Each structure stands twice: as structure tokens, then as C-alpha cells.
């Protein structure tokens, strides 16, 4: 019902929207909740457990009842608080957790069965028969539970993330926050003022009280105008500071686009801000708490302050007749404001005996509401006063059990709030968040005057703490300063359920049952009853529940304790927190310089860590990757192939002690390496297991370049920096990663030298570039490097040029290779070539293998210390029974060998007890014309020639294999030197 001429919404401007398909009209400036109330809609949702009819309870983000789904299809946004959702043209809202309709919900049968469904009932039943849990009971429970539904479609909306920095973050723009921001800003402090509401002013927007002789919201507008004009102030509306983290970091969510119709080119829905502030002031205000009385949950029963907000700010009231029930003076204002707006107040019920009520309505003091009526909306209530009962007619009951400071953010770093007997609630603990102070109602200073003064004081203190000199406290404007008078009233005796947590359907008796069953710790009670675990995180209900528990256990409230509040303050969409990651945004994409050329040749690109590498290069007529792979292998083995190996880590190491440093990080000795030579190297972790392998090239007396595997490039770089800085600062050595600076290509095969000599400024031969040689070379006029190393067993080189020449060099090499009958090859062929030679990759050195396991323990030099040397000697790391690297060849015809299969003695049952090892790498070798496998086998080096049984349960493969040396091809290595 609209109150003519009241509130901010422009009553001349109609905004059409739908609720459950029904067309309705609100006004610009409405929330969905105010628009629904304006249309006389009180029933808005169903509760979680009993599916009880529920309506709008509050007017802010703490709303427990009025949760709806906005929009449809991929845009459908479930569990939106109608009290926060701003109305826009065409807004489409649907109620949740009901079937088939909001008015007729089949699941409401749960309410009738509620005597059977008390707190924790499910722990005591549904145990028999066992298989029924997954098949019957659980699916039923799951379907009944839950609130809204996800669409199931991929997100199509835009969300963003951003960082912001400031001297002072003021959280909340009510009277305290405005004064704090103003005071600090005038002192020159860089201020961010954030408020979750669509408009700043806090309670001043909802009250008729005056500040500085003007209506509160007009005063707020004046302050905001001044703030807006200052360069050192940022105002962030619709921005909820939801979490406090270490070193002054805050998480905040800005609702950017939710208040506008979708047109296809819209703003992001939300922006997630990481705000870093040197200091902060929490001015989050306070939240009104309910009173537990029988059937206090009917649609139309609302918080008294919310009723006032709807009347004063939005110009609506939920029904023509309103009753007020409270234990404090504050709620009397609701009655007065409504009467002033022309609404009939059918009763004001105050639980206190000796209280003066200045309200022109039937007043019941020392009275309680003991019953209510109205199935889908409140119709009336029963008031008990001095033993007599009175029936009262009302469609809205405004209730207030007093106020709780919004201490939530101060709990995010484990600060437990402190009980304040004066206000019968919790106030923040001092210093709970480093750099944060709390001002105004958030620390129990409830009058407008006190909030204004406290805000000014804290703002000035923050400015001083930030080093501003001569901070001037502005004159605190005049405002009402009445003391907060109330008398605790938590739960009213009487028949019927007295609800505390509206959404989760927890009532007084549930909490008493928890206490009766000895769930007396507040955490036990919470977890047993689900009290406070609904979407409002107990913002409305926790203090009442605690009081009821304290009463049930015969303890005081402070002794009973409190549960903590966890971030976020109000729920935050995963899409906002993870903005940018959807699709390819999850991790950086690294491209080699040959990427475009590979794609141009139709190579499928596969992920190799963050890199993309060509899988194979399909030729005309080839139908499968295997055909291409076999051809590429044969090409390399017969003529020449070109492969981009730039993804391998390249680390440049220089300095007088570079050689000594390398001796310390490699198991083998690098100091004896001659300039112009390359040596294979093995690195261990300090625990004695293999860290990585690669090559080490000596370009000068004090200059080395080492390579790492692609996977371990960053790890090895960090490791080397660690050793140099933390363990061996005595060594004069400089280390830098040059992986991205150099493009490097393998030119592999018998014709490799011929191909290279087409592009090298000075041709090479065996003397100038012997096996395991390296040198600076000129490559088509560019300074480059040449290494004669091989990962294929072929006569091969790797040639490196500055990355900017990579693309042209690659194209040139491939073109010239083709002249010799060669061409490019991809990762699949690379893998076959290395398996044929028994070369290892991270499939073998997977972090659990030792030098002993891979047959390289003799590479640990006895003449010097190195990282990992001592612990590699541990008994368990050199035990003969360890799984050792072997080769596998099929014994007879097999379908295939598979990596990940386990090995057993022929004839043994495939069980863990009989497990002899596992296969790490397999391929079909066109060279050997057989499947080949690399495997780790217990005591494997002593078992060459034996037959083992390969079992891959998952793929349904079994095969007998002959154990052999892992080098399948050219074991003498003649081709390398040829």
C-alpha cells in the first residue's frame, strides 16, 4: 500500500515489473521489497525446512525471508534479497523453494510433520536399510532443502575485479561514517567512503529526525556534496565491505549493474574490490533484533525499523492496520511515524511495565504478543496484559527486541566481541582489526547525536594517526540524543513455535532441546540446530538464540559465549571473486615464437604447463595422430627434423664463483667442464630425490648457461636463487632466467649439420663443433648460440637466437630441412624419440625417484658436497628392493602397453601385496617396430630378461613383457657422434 507523498520514490514515474509472472508496478527508487509491499504483497517466500509462508522481514541486506530469483536463463540470479534489489523496468522476480506455487506449496507438509522433524532428527534415523540413504532419503532431503536454483547454464555475465588504495577506509555512510569521512577528508586524508546501500545516509534516510535543523537525509546530502567535491575522497555506493584481512586489506563488492535493465551492452554485474587502507573506521551501524513469540514469523511481521524505513524512505506500508510490539522506546517512533503518515496503528504493545508511551494509539504496557493468526499473511494477534487477553487486528506487526551493533567485520580476524550489559548486546573488542576503530551504533552508541560526535572524533583520531597535523574537529551538528531505553525480552512464553532463525526454521524449543541433549556449547547448539547458519549468518537471530541458550543452561549470556562471524559480511558471488578466470583467463598462456608457424601448418597445440606446443604436424592424407607421429619419427631417424625447444628453462649463470656454485647444485662436477663444452647434469632436492635434469654449457671461464625441463623451469630458478642467497652467500655468482629471451630449436638427424650450414655464417664440422660442444655463432647475420646436444640419440644441435628472431629462424630451418627431406616434428614424435633412447622426463623423475632409481647414483660425485648428497645416502633411498628404471618390450603379440599400468610377476594375482612396479611412459616405436615402455620395477636392474605381467585394470589391458635395458635404440650411441 502506497503512502501518498511519502518517501523518495518518484510516485509519478511508474516502473513495471513481474513477481511470479504477475505484472505489477512500482516506482523509480523502490527496492523490489518496497514495490511488493506497495502492491500489497506480503507473502514472498517459503522457509528452508518447514516451507512456512514468509514475507519481507527487514529492509536491508540482512533479510532472512524475502529471497527471490531475478531474471531467467543463464542470467537467473538466485537468493537475491528483495530488500536490496533495486527496481528497474522489466525486472522479473520469482519466489523460491516452493512447488507448485508460492501459495500452495506441497512441501509445506513438512510443517505438519514438524513434531517428527525437531532439531537434529536426521542424526537419529534414516540409518536402515543402509542403501536407502543414497537412493531414497538423501535425494528427498536434498530436493526439499536449498533455496533458489542455479540455471545450470554457463555464466554469460561480466564481472570485474580491481584494486584500490587509500589512507582511510570508512565503512558505512550513516551519521557516524559521514562525520568520520568529512573530518578526515578536511584534514587532507585520502579517504574511501563505502556503503552497501544505493544511497548514502544510513538510518538518516529512514528516519524523520532532524540534524542541524534539517531533515536528516538533507543534512546527509549536504555532507555528501562537500565530500564529492574533494579530490581526496572517493564515494563508493552499492559497495559492501565484506571482509577484513591482514595488513589493512579489505574485500568489497560493488553492485555495478544489478539496478539497471539488461540491454546487451550493460555494465558488469559486479566489481570485486581489494581495498588496501592504512587505517579504517567501521561505521556499520546496528541491526534490530526480533522477539521470539508464538508464530512470530507470519508474512507481515517485520522489524519495527524496517516498517519505518518502508514508510519514511519508500512511502509504503504492508497493510492498512499496523501493530507495534517492542521492549524499547525506539520502536515507538514506528507508531508515531505511521500515524503521521495516516496509517492506522491498532495497538502499541510494550513489554515494559513502567513506561510512558507518547503515541496516539491503543497502548498496552507490561504486555506481550502471545499468538498471531493468518495463514499466508498476518490477520491478527493476541495480546496478554496482566492475565487478560486482547484480540488485535493487524496486517503488519512491527516488532523490536532492541538493537545489536554490527560488529561482524571486527570478528573476521578472530576478535571476539564483548558483552555490554547496558545495551544487552555485543560490542566490538578494541583492536580486533589492526588499524581499525569503530564509531557510532556499531559500538553501541545508538542516538544520532552520539553517532555524529563519535564519527567526528574517530575521523579526527584517524587523521592524526595518519600523521596529519592540526586536525580540526568540525562542529558536531545538533541532533536527537535520547538515551537508548529498553528492557531485555528474548522469548515470550506461550503455546506454539517461537521462531528465532526465520530462514532455517529454528525456534526456541530447538535450542532447548539442544541444551537438553547436552549441546550446551554455543558452537554445538549452532551446529546441532543450524541456528545462525542461514544466509544472514545469524545477523538477526544470534543474540536472541544465545539468550535462550543461556536461559536453558542456567548461565549468563557472557558465560555462554558467542559464535564468531566469518567473512563475507553478506554473500558474494563466485563469479565476482573469480572474475576474469572464466574460459582462458584462469592462467596465463605462454606462446613460443614458432606458435604462428605451427598453427599455419595445422598442428594441434597442446598445453605443456602454461605453454602451448605442437602435438604433431599432419601431412596430407594422414587420418590419425599416430600416422603423423610415426612419419615424423622416421623422418628424424632418416634425415632431419626441426623442433622448438624454447620452453625448456634457460638460466644464465655468471661470476667468479659460478663453477663452484654449479658444483654445489649439481650432483656431478661442472668446474672441470672446458669452455665450449656441454655436460649433462642432475640436480637433487635436499631430501636426496631428483629435482631436475638438463644440460650445462660453459660459454666462458665465468659464464655458464644451463637448461631445465619445461615443467621445472620456475622451480629450479627459485631453487638456485635460494642456494645462492640463503645457503651460499659467500659465492660471487649472478643468476638470471633467460628462458624468454632466447628462442631455441632442435635440429635433429643425420642431415642436421647440412641444414645448419645453410644458415650459419660460418659452417661447422666435427672439429669445430664436436659432440657436446657449444659456441657463439652467427646465424644468418644474427648473434646466436649453438649446442651439439641430443634428446633423440641422433646427431643433433640446438640453435638459439634472441627471441625476436625466433619466428623467422624457425620458418627458415623448417624450409631448409624440407630441402633435405626433413621437416618439423611435434611433441608426440619427440616423446617417441626419447623413449626409444630411454631418456627420462618428469614422467620418470616425478619427485619420488632417486638417482639410484634411475641408475645415475654414480653421478653423485664423491669428491664434493652438493645439495641432497647426504640425505640421498639414507638407507631407504638406496635399497636394492627399490623400484628401478627398466625398459619393457612386449613378450609376443599385445594390443598395447599403457602408462599407469602396474607390474606383477607372471602368474601372480594383481593385488597391492604383489605389486612389483608401474609403467611411466609408453609408445609405439616405428624404429624398433614394437611397443616400448619405461617402467619402475622392484630390483629391476637385476631382472633384465625376466618376464613380468603388465596389468591395467582401468583400461582392461594385460600383457606379458620382457624386462630390458631402458635404451632400446643405438645403445652404443654411435649416431650421436656420427
Amino acid at each position: 500500500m502506497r503512502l501518498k507523498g511519502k518517501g523518495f520514490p518518484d510516485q509519478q514515474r511508474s516502473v513495471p515489473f513481474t513477481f511470479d509472472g504477475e505484472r505489477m508496478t512500482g516506482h523509480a527508487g523502490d527496492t523490489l521489497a518496497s514495490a511488493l509491499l506497495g502492491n500489497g504483497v506480503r507473502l514472498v517466500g517459503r522457509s528452508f525446512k518447514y516451507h512456512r509462508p514468509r514475507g519481507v522481514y527487514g529492509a536491508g541486506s540482512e533479510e532472512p525471508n524475502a529471497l527471490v530469483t531475478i531474471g531467467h536463463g543463464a542470467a537467473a540470479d538466485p537468493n537475491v534479497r528483495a530488500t536490496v534489489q533495486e527496481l528497474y523496468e522489466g525486472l522479473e522476480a520469482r519466489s523460491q523453494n516452493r512447488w507448485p506455487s508460492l501459495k500452495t506449496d506441497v512441501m509445506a507438509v513438512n510443517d505438519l510433520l514438524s513434531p517428527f522433524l525437531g532439531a537434529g532428527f536426521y542424526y537419529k534415523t534414516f540409518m536402515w536399510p543402509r542403501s536407502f540413504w543414497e537412493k531414497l532419503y538423501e535425494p528427498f532431503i536434498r530436493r526439499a532443502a536449498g533455496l533458489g536454483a542455479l540455471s545450470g547454464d554457463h555464466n554469460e555475465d561480466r564481472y570485474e575485479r580491481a584494486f584500490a588504495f587509500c589512507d582511510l577506509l570508512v565503512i558505512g555512510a550513516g551519521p557516524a561514517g559521514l562525520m568520520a569521512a568529512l573530518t578526515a577528508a578536511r584534514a587532507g586524508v585520502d579517504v574511501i567512503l563505502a556503503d552497501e546501500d544505493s544511497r548514502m545516509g544510513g538510518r538518516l534516510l529512514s528516519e524523520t529526525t532532524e540534524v542541524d535543523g534539517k531533515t536528516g537525509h538533507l543534512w546527509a546530502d549536504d555532507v555528501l556534496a562537500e565530500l564529492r567535491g574533494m579530490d581526496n575522497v572517493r564515494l563508493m555506493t552499492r559497495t559492501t565491505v565484506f571482509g577484513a584481512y591482514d595488513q589493512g586489506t579489505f574485500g568489497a563488492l560493488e553492485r555495478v549493474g544489478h539496478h539497471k535493465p539488461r540491454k546487451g551492452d550493460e555494465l558488469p554485474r559486479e566489481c570485486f574490490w581489494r581495498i588496501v587502507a592504512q587505517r579504517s573506521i567501521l561505521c556499520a551501524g546496528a541491526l534490530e533484533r526480533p522477539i521470539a513469540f508464538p508464530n512470530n514469523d507470519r508474512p507481515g511481521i517485520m522489524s519495527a525499523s524496517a516498517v519505518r524505513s518502508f514508510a519514511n524512505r519508500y512511502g509504503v506500508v504492508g497493510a492498512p492496520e499496523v501493530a507495534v510490539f517492542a521492549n524499547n522506546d525506539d520502536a515507538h517512533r514506528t507508531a508515531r511515524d505511521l500515524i503521521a503518515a495516516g496509517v492506522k496503528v491498532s495497538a502499541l504493545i510494550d513489554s515494559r511495565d513502567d513506561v510512558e508511551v507518547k503515541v496516539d494509539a491503543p497502548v498496552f504496557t507490561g504486555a506481550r504478543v502471545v499468538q498471531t493468526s493468518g495463514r499466508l499473511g498476518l490477520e491478527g494477534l493476541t495480546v496478554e496484559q496482566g492475565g487478560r487477553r486482547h484480540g488485535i487486528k493487524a496486517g503488519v506487526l512491527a516488532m523490536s527486541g532492541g538493537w545489536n551493533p554490527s560488529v561482524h567485520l571486527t570478528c573476521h580476524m578472530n576478535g571476539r566481541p564483548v558483552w555490554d550489559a547496558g545495551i544487552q548486546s555485543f560490542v566490538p573488542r578494541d583492536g580486533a582489526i589492526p588499524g581499525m576503530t569503530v564509531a557510532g551504533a556499531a559500538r553501541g552508541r545508538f542516538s544520532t547525536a552520539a553517532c555524529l560526535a563519535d564519527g567526528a572524533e574517530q575521523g579526527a583520531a584517524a587523521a592524526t594517526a595518519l600523521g596529519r597535523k592540526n586536525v580540526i574537529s568540525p562542529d558536531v551538528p545538533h541532533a536527537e540524543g535520547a538515551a537508548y531505553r529498553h528492557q531485555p525480552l528474548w522469548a515470550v512464553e506461550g503455546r506454539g513455535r517461537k521462531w528465532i532463525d526465520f530462514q532455517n526454521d529454528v525456534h526456541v524449543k530447538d535450542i532447548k532441546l539442544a541444551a537438553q541433549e547436552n549441546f550446551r556449547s554455543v558452537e554445538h547448539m549452532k551446529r546441532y540446530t543450524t541456528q545462525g547458519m542461514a544466509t544472514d549468518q545469524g545477523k538477526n537471530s544470534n543474540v536472541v538464540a544465545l539468550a535462550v541458550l543461556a536461559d536453558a543452561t542456567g548461565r549468563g549470556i557472557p558465560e555462554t559465549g558467542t559464535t564468531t562471524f566469518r567473512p563475507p559480511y553478506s554473500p558474494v558471488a563466485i563469479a565476482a571473486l573469480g572474475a576474469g578466470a572464466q574460459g582462458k583467463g584462469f592462467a596465463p598462456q605462454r606462446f613460443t615464437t614458432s606458435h604462428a608457424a605451427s598453427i599455419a601448418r595445422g598442428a594441434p597445440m597442446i598445453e605443456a604447463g602454461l605453454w602451448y606446443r605442437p602435438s604433431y604436424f599432419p601431412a596430407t592424407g594422414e587420418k590419425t595422430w599416430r600416422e603423423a607421429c610415426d612419419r615424423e619419427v622416421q623422418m628424424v631417424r632418416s634425415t632431419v627434423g626441426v623442433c622448438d625447444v624454447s620452453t625448456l628453462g634457460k638460466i644464465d649463470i655468471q661470476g667468479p664463483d659460478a663453477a663452484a656454485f654449479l658444483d654445489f647444485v649439481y650432483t656431478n662436477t661442472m668446474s672441470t667442464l672446458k669452455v665450449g663444452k656441454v655436460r649433462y647434469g642432475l640436480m637433487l632436492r635436499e631430501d636426496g630425490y631428483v629435482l631436475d635434469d638438463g644440460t650445462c654449457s660453459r660459454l666462458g671461464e665465468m659464464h655458464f648457461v644451463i637448461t631445465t625441463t619445461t615443467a621445472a623451469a620456475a622451480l629450479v630458478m627459485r631453487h638456485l636463487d635460494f642456494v645462492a642467497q640463503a645457503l651460499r652467500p659467500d659465492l660471487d655468482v649472478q643468476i638470471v632466467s633467460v628462458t624468454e629471451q632466447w628462442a631455441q630449436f632442435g635440429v635433429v638427424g643425420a642431415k642436421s649439420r647440412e641444414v645448419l650450414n645453410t644458415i650459419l655464417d660460418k659452417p661447422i664440422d666435427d672439429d669445430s663443433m664436436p659432440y657436446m660442444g657449444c659456441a657463439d655463432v652467427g646465424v644468418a647475420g644474427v648473434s646466436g648460440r649453438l649446442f651439439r646436444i641430443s634428446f633423440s640419440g641422433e646427431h643433433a644441435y640446438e640453435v638459439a637466437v634472441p627471441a625476436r628472431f625466433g619466428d623467422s629462424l624457425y620458418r627458415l630451418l623448417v624450409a631448409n630441412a624440407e630441402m633435405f627431406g626433413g621437416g618439423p616434428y611435434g611433441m608426440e614424435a619427440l616423446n617417441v624419440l626419447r623413449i626409444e633412447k630411454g631418456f627420462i622426463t618428469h614422467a620418470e623423475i616425478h619427485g619420488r625417484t632417486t638417482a639410484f632409481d634411475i641408475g645415475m647414483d654414480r653421478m653423485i660425485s664423491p669428491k664434493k658436497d652438493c645439495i641432497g648428497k647426504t640425505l640421498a645416502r639414507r638407507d631407504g633411498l638406496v635399497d636394492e628392493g627399490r623400484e628401478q628404471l627398466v625398459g619393457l618390450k612386449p613378450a609376443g603379440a599385445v594390443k598395447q602397453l599403457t602408462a599407469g599400468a602396474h607390474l606383477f610377476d607372471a602368474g601372480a594375482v594383481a593385488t597391492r601385496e604383489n605389486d612389483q612396479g608401474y609403467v611411466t611412459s609408453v609408445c609405439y616405436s616405428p624404429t624398433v617396430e614394437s611397443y616400448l615402455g619405461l617402467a619402475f620395477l622392484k630390483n629391476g636392474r637385476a631382472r633384465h630378461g625376466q618376464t613380468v605381467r603388465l596389468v591395467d585394470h582401468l583400461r582392461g589391458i594385460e600383457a606379458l613383457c620382457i624386462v630390458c635395458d631402458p635404451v632400446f635404440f643405438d645403445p652404443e650411441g654411435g649416431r650421436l657422434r656420427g
Partner: protein
Amino acid sequence: MRYNAWQIFKEAFTGQTGWKPVWRDPEPKKEYDIVLIGGGGHGLSTAYYLAKNHGLTNIAVLEKGYIGSGNIGRNTTIVRANYFLPGNSEFYSHSLKLWEGLESDLNYNVMHSQRGLINLFHSDGQRDAFVRRGNAMINQGDDAVLLDRDGVRQHLPYIDFDNVRFPVYGGLLHPRGGTARHDAVAWGYARGADQRGVDLIQNCEVTGIDISNGKVTGVQTSRGPIRAKKVAMVAAGRSGQVAAMAGMRLPIESHVLQAFVTEGLKPVIDHVVSFGMGHFYISQSDKGGLVFGGDLDFYSSYAQRGNLPMKEHVMEAAMTLMPMIGKAKVLRSWGGIMDMSPDGSPIIDRTHVDGLFVNCGWNYGGFKAVPASGWAYAHLIATGKPHDTAARYRLDRFTTGRGIMDEEGTGSQHNLH
């Protein structure tokens, strides 16, 4: 009192007045045969199996806070037996079997839901590693199924298969994997132990361990000294502090692991799903909240809370893998303190002090281990000998190098497991 449908029926008509306390709140006695330090999941299950399997009931469980206040009440509730290294395989396999009989054993519904767990992989190399794991699971007698891309699509149609940074190659399905209601596990074991005569003593902090001539004699507590013939430490999250009272340094670093739950939603995720290219795992609770987590925050901490970078990383993984959950709203996030050991596997062993035992180092695996850990620890405490399923969880394995169980292959760096 036994729980069953009839009892619920009866209480419905008698105003729920007949329900009895689930456990007593006894005053601590002067002396016990066995004192367990820590009333979390592992301490409670140990007490339960000491009583049930070994007939030992003169036992106190000392808990500094409330029963179940540690990681048993702040995890992502996943129950699985998909380890692949000897030592872990048999232990977690045993645990899963105990889970499967837990409800009838405890007469308490812990809502163990074997909804199936799917580990996704995103490269050939990852697939081979998961195949090795899955085969090890089958060798152990557990279950595993290899899914190709289409197989994953059948189970998880909502995953983004097309526009994604790391495409899904397939998955390893562990049909018997699933979830359980974490608090209920603590309460069920507490109730079972209490019914058998174990004293559960809450708000009782151990401040010292009394040792005389190399033998343990009792503990000092905030509620006075308690003598004991045997003392068993089982205080994950505070293992180091407790062991220090006995002059021990442990191979443990404490780290914070965050977890998240969204607002309630209608059923949408029916499995436990784990993403292979970033630590991210998710399931949906029976109440409808999406329960998920990721990696450690990666710095040592006792704060039971985390910071934004890891939160964001977890959400990023969610968005790249299953962008349909973008509009689910995170309701609460919290942190548990993990005992991170050098190889990522736990320790259940004797100590250098006669009569003093240690159970720690559960890394990410503590919740699913609760039944088997209690079973094996009870066996060790009662008989002095390690149980077969936990024989490799030795404290000295880092010195001998024997039986190191590094499932992640990251080596002796505590935070990387």
C-alpha cells in the same frame, strides 16, 4: 538410548522431553589408565575403539575447547580411499570400510553419502598418473573407473568443455567416494565412547606432560593434574605445542587451509568433483550449500582464517571449470589448521618416552581418516604394536628414508603436500 524411527515417533507425541544428553560432562578423575590429549575426530574415535575393540574404558579425553572444535568441524567433508602409495593405500582403504559400517556401529546417522568422486585430468601425463593411481586402488581392492571426455560429460554435463584454459581429458571416478556430515562424526563417536564409559572432559587444556625416568606419568591441565599410565597426543593443529611439552620437535609445520560454503541451492552438483589444474574440489551438502576448497594459503599459521589471494584462486578455478556456479554466493569462509608433514602422510607411532604416543601430520587427509586413525591408534596404545594398516606411519621414516609416502611428489617441503 538407542536412536531409531520409533524413538522419534514417540518423542513427537511427548514433546521431545525424553531425549537424553548425548554425552555426560564428568568431572575429571585423579587418575586414568589412558589420557588422550585432544577431543577432535581422531581423539574421539581412538577413545571409542579403545573401549569397543580393546575393552579399555578407564579413559579420559581432554579437550581444551568443546568436543569436535578442531578440524573435524571445519573441513570439506570428503571421504575417499584414492591413495596410491603403499602405506596410504591400505590405511585409507580400511578407513573407507569402517565408514561404510559406521552408522550402524555408532547408531548415529553421520550421513555418509557415497555419491562418487571424480578427479579430472587435463593432459596425457596427468591421465597416466591417475591411471597409475586408479590401478593401485583396484589392486588394493577398492574401486576406480577411468572416464574419457564423454564419460565425464555424462556425469558432469555442467562443466565447460569448450572454452576453457585447461581442457578436460577425462576423469578418474571413485564410486565409493563421497561425503559425510562432519560434526555428526564427532558427535557419534563421542556418544559411543561416552556410552562405554569414557570420560569426555571439555574445557580442559593440557598444560604439561609429566615424565619420570623416561616414562610418562600423567598430565597437568587447566583443571588440575591427572595421573595416567599412558598418554596419547592427538591434537592436530596444535601437535607441535603439545609435543613440545614432552620435549619433542615434530616434523610438522602448521598451515591454514580455507574452505567455503555458498547459500543453499537446489540440487545441482551430485558428485564430489576435483579439478586437476588447480587445487579445487567441490560437493553440495544435503542442505544445498556448495562446499568447496582449494590449496593451503601457503604460509605457516595458527589463525584459522585465510587471506584473499587463495580465496580468489579457488574461485578462479571454479569459474574456469564450471562457470554455471558463478551466481552461487559464498556465504561463509573459514580456515582449518593443517598439520603438514614433510611427505604429506601422517604419523601414528610411539615416542622416545615410554607410554607416550603421537598421532599427527594429517595434512589434507584427516577427516576421511578418522575411523581408521582411531582404530589403528587404539591398537597401538592398547597393544604397544602398530596396527597392520598403519605400520608405515613411523616417526623415524624421514631419518631412515624408508617408507616415505610422498603422494604429491613435491619432496620435503611441508606446505607443498
